[in-house]
């Protein structure tokens, strides 16, 4: 066994991120590490590389107990990490990137020839013949990744950690990467492969470690782990008791179609997505991480450009060039990451809520304070936002109440279609069902809601129909009557049939 991590625990501010997690990797083995967002994969890896300190547990590397305090130490011990955002200096040459910090020297000066030839030689072992003196920014993501791997190899890495290495690669590039991984394996190097696309895991990995809620829930040879079982291990938790608030059977199919997306595609993340949202309905969008849910939302909203397919809004073909156009058409997008895209922490609830509305609120260039107050008061009471006053800074509110303020921000623009991306992430359980009830009520008033969610119980409780994405394509549409945990698992596990 090359690496053995046992009983690893780690808490952040008292909140456990890892609870006695374990990970074992054999010599020349490709180990898949899978799990949902927040399952603890990246925390575990950061503890291994020394970016975080563990609270408990032991790490054996090559039989010796290790405890790294910073990434440079684990690198020196032969652990190399290839990050999703490939970490190279883009303007420096390929050769320099491979040898940076360990430049071959002659008479004290850099031996440029040795560097050039060494770089070319190691790249040749991966069947890559490129100009090693050209800046890396010139090359495709796949080539850059290969350069990063070549760097790892020249550092005598024993264990290469790849964090979602295929997320920005196309089909052909993935094949090249997998060849590279096989080459690594042959030379005795082990790989930890963090990924979400099941087909790829089955193609390249020997074994799989599945994490959920900070624990290692299953370890097995890849061949002994059917896809369905893998997905169940990843997602299956005790369903929280949400009251079912979805519509009764086929009532909604008679309503008018608010949004229809047909065979939409853009880049490699969104390949072929079709879905519909009706007025008065909550339409769910499910799928594993990396299946293209958020990217699909960005396409509809005009944040990304659609390359293929068609979007119809209220029956009319639409292709928004920028979110402002979509907003003007009555579409809102409540994004996944409140902290980054949404709230302005130091500003008041009033200001946060009416930010998108300010252009309409001014009278002779001055903000109409009376109308602003009226709108803010209305939504604070309608959404049940718990706050001291509208002037309270939004950062003082709980996650659930912040989310309600953002919801209010969109609602006061009077949208006809609202896309909500993980609307209950980071919110406590009571507030979760409150947000879901709120969405339901809005739908009852005629709003079309497209709800992206990783939480099955949420979809089961609230969605009137669920479209399932897998690897950038819609693979199933489950109407309310067919909606069950098992059906969702099956749809997510089976990639393109």
């Amino acid at each position, binding site marked *: 066994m090359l690496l053995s991590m046992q009983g690893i625990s780690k808490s952040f501010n008292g909140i456990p991120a890892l609870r006695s997690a374990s990970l074992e990797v054999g010599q020349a083995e490709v180990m898949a590490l899978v799990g949902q967002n927040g399952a603890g994969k990246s925390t575990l890896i950061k503890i291994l590389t020394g970016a975080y300190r563990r609270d408990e547990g032991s790490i054996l590397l090559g039989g010796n107990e290790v405890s790294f305090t910073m*990434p*440079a130490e684990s*690198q020196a011990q032969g652990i190399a990490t290839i*990050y999703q955002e490939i*970490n*190279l*200096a*883009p*303007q*420096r040459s390929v050769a*320099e*990137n491979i040898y*940076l*910090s360990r*430049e071959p*020297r002659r008479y*004290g*000066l*850099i031996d*440029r020839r040795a560097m050039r030839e060494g770089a070319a030689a190691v790249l040749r072992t991966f069947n890559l013949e490129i100009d090693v003196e*050209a*800046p890396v*920014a010139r090359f495709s993501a796949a080539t850059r990744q290969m350069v990063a791997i070549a*760097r790892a190899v020249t550092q005598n890495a024993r264990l290469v950690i790849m964090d979602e290495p295929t997320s920005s690669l196309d089909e052909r590039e993935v094949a090249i990467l997998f060849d590279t991984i096989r080459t690594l394996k042959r030379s005795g190097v082990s790989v930890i492969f963090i990924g979400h696309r099941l087909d790829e895991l089955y193609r390249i990995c020997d074994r799989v470690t599945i994490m959920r809620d900070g624990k290692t829930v299953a370890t097995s040879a890849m061949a002994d782990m059917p896809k369905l079982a893998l997905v169940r291990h990843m997602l299956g938790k005790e369903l929280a008791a949400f009251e079912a608030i979805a519509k009764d059977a086929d009532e909604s199919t008679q309503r008018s179609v608010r949004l229809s997306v047909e065979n939409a595609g853009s880049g490699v993340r969104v390949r072929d997505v079709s879905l519909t949202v009706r007025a008065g309905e909550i339409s769910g969008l499910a799928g594993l991480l990396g299946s293209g849910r958020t990217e699909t939302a960005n396409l509809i909203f005009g944040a990304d450009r659609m390359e293929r397919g068609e979007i119809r809004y209220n029956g009319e073909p639409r292709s928004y060039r920028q979110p402002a156009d979509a907003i003007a058409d009555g579409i809102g997008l409540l994004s996944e990451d409140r902290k980054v895209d949404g709230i302005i922490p130091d500003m008041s609830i009033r200001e946060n809520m009416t930010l998108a509305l300010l252009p309409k609120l001014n009278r002779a260039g001055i903000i109409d304070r009376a109308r602003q107050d009226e709108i803010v008061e209305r939504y604070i009471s309608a959404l049940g936002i718990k706050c001291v006053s509208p002037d309270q800074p939004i950062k003082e509110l709980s996650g659930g109440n912040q989310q309600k303020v953002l919801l209010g921000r969109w609602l006061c623009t009077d949208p006809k279609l609202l896309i909500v991306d993980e609307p209950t992430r980071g919110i406590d359980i009571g507030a979760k069902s409150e947000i879901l009830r709120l969405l339901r009520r809005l739908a009852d008033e005629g709003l079309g809601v497209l709800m992206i969610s990783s939480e099955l119980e949420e979809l089961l409780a609230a969605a009137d129909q669920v479209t399932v994405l897998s690897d950038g394509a819609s693979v199933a549409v489950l109407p309310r009557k067919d909606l069950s945990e098992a059906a969702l698992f099956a749809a997510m596990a089976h990639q393109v049939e």
Partner: protein
Amino acid sequence: MNALLKALALRSPGDMARLGVILALFGLILFGALRYDNFLSQYNILSFLRYNSMFALIALGMAFVIMTGGIDLSVGGTAAMASVIAALLSPHHWAAGLVGGIAAGLAVGALNGFIVTAMRIQPFIATLATMLAAYGTALLLAGNQSVSVSYDSGFTAIGQDDFLGFPIPAWIALLAYVAGWLVLERLPIGRHVLAIGDGEATAALMGLKVRRTLIAVYLGSGALAGLAGVILASQFGAGQPTEGVGWELFAIASVVVGGTLLTGGSGSIGATLAGALLLAMVFNILNFENGLGWISLSAYWQSVIRGGFLLIVVVLQARLMSRREEKA
């Protein structure tokens, strides 16, 4: 055309900008030679080199700082302070003045490096503060007036004498540029400077010693500014606590005209020298033009022109970069 570019080893828009500055420099020289009688006279060439060596030295230090993605606004103040300290020490020995001035520059550089790396303050703010502190120190030490240097210790030779027919300051600048080129192109630290400018977090993840490299860069800029201060005192016979205003702008303009990106990660020593010479040449030509009597530009106008020049170059550079990003 493509073959020509290849032969000249021109790989990037940055290289094109560097070629541009060299062509512009030759164009200006040709223009001056044709238009003014004494432009290529020995006197003009030698005094041009003697005077502008100071600026070239400061531009060299600035080039390294900018390549890391930082900026050093303190160079003018540092030079002023170093000139006063060198003048004060010059009666003891010419070397005392030289070493003292450089040491003063190193001290400011060390302070800059410390503030930027250990205290994580933006270089712009950090060096703005040390600039004011350096001017204040210069005025304190000089008692609010210029400090005459010793004419007996041989200190004035540094700035005024020739060696093998060339001004000593020009020799010093030439040596510094050769050393700077070696450091950037042939020593690991030079490549690390560029990698850090390309992305500091990434550089750290690749195992580079980011803090140490940044401190070295600010030390170098401080030392070169100190050396420029020594030359200033020696050349004009006095430590000048109020000199140096706007020198940082001249240095930044030289570096940027030389094709070095203000965002860091790319740059060339040779083109920085060409940039410094180009800017200096513009002012030399303006002086000649004044002499012809067609126009009359005061020293104040020079600083307006310098600022305008920098603005134009930075705008051009930003547009070049955004066009490249669109392509990518």
